[in-house]
């Protein structure tokens, strides 16, 4: 019995430590090579908003809380944020800004590979790193890119189109 509990404790600890997101809920996932395909695959079939931002980007600071409110008002939509600055040591600042903006519960990523050209190239070869940037992925996988600050009304309209498309027989 005791042996089982010790063995169980080992298993529990190993699984706890080895699990992705070991450091706790609210942590940022490192966005690395292949992460973009992983995101597309994980959200396939569901309308998804992917928002690229950065802690030093002025317009991002204005837009983040609006997106946070949008997520609150539309619980059904998949919200993904990706901190796309080259930030070697600032996941804390990124997490803090996300939480203050009401996006703490979103699926939050942070560029985790210094070779940002390669990361961006995987997402969109035409993107040179300007942020904010929002990619709307329809349930069918169609991609709409909004450069710069997005208007929430435009995202709302897109989401309504998704719902209408899904409702069609």
């Amino acid at each position, binding site marked *: 019995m005791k042996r089982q509990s010790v063995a169980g404790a080992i298993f529990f600890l*190993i699984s706890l430590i080895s699990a992705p997101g070991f450091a706790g809920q609210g942590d940022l996932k490192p966005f690395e090579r292949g992460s973009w395909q992983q995101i597309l695959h994980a959200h396939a079939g569901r309308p998804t908003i992917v928002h690229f931002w950065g802690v030093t980007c002025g317009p991002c600071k204005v837009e983040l809380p609006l997106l946070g409110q949008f997520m609150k008002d539309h619980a059904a939509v998949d919200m993904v944020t990706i901190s796309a600055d080259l*930030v070697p040591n600032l996941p804390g600042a990124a997490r803090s800004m996300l939480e203050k903006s009401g996006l703490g519960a979103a699926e939050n990523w942070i560029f985790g590979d210094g070779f940002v050209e390669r990361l961006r190239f995987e997402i969109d*070869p*035409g993107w040179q790193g300007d942020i904010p940037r929002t990619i709307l992925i329809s349930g069918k996988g169609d991609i709409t890119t909004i450069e*710069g600050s997005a208007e929430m009304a435009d995202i709302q309209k897109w989401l309504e189109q998704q719902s209408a498309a899904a409702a069609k027989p």
Partner: protein
Amino acid sequence: MSHIEKRSNFMLRKLALATITAVLCQTAAYAQMSHHQHASDAACDEPTLRCASKVTPAFASDGTLWLAWQAGGQVSVASSKDGGQTLSTPVAVTKERLNLDWGPDARPKIVVDREGRIAVAFSIFRDKAFNGQVLYSRSFDGGKEFAEPKPITGSNESQRFEAMALDQDGSLFVAWLDKRNRVPAKEEGRKYEGAALFFASSKDGGETYSEARMARDNTCECCRLGIAFAGPGRPAVVFRNIFEGSIRDHAVMTFTDPSTPGEIRRVSVDDWQISACPHQGPSLSISAAGTYHVTWYTNGKARKGLFYARSKDGGVTFSDPVAIGRADRSPSRPYVIAGPHELAMVWKEFDGEKTAVNLMTSQDDGVNWSAPKAIASTSDTSDHPLLVTDGRRTYLSWMTKADGYRFQPIENEP
């Protein structure tokens, strides 16, 4: 409990401890590796050149090459008498680890005047809201010691993206992007867009700078500036401006004298309406014939990609933009210089695996250009490619994470 059971429990506990220790160590090691080698734009975290993320070159009039770089939270300077093959012992400009501006278009600046006085400027993030501050320092003993860095302006608002150039009379001209005007706008309930182009000059080799003055309000806030001289006492600045309707296209301003800003002249109507930080500023060089040469990046309605244009009338009107690089290879970070024998332009291209620096040259002041050729490449992240001349040859300066610092003449390439 039997002896065997006790031993077995002991073994299990030992195994548990060893396993947890191993996994924790592995996790810590991964985090360390991930942090320093993977997620960072630098190969390591020491103040050495090998660990630099940004390196800026400057030639002194005696032909000595000077480098300023940021690495390990510090700005350091060293010199080379043999074209970068061997370096002097680096000297720290900063005495402590600082939160140096790591924005893609930030880098330390260095200028060496005819008397060998070295002026340095760089930006830091001075608070948790990422407000910037431009600091300057100087060395009057040939780079042995640098004065304690001081703010270039008394304003406590945000400044970033300083640019510095040496005038013919030995004075220094500095321009930067400054957010001080957002304060009165906020007080009056007005929306404030972008930043302002501010400038100052130094007549004592960078010991002191004149009071900061504004050249233009509401410019884009996150792109590097380019400075060149149209003649003695006539600095010209290229920057991403915000034109009517939030259009972030490029403009050149040629000063009448170092304290008198001139008219804004639009380089090109690209029609890039965007409320964002493009993080990719322009480059300007003025040839001996007085021709302005500008390269820039845009993603406008009228055109997208890298472009080049020239002005034969002192930066008043510009030629039709010429596209640079392969559109399918994400061309970026263009830099142009009017060298002693030819005009040269470099930029980066990424093919999905490697980043290459491509070069084009012009023998007729920018009318015709050679076919592009790759002159260097790397398989990990890299600094912007820069060009610098000692008056005899032009050189490429390029810091790469995987292959270290490269300094190579661009002529006589195979």
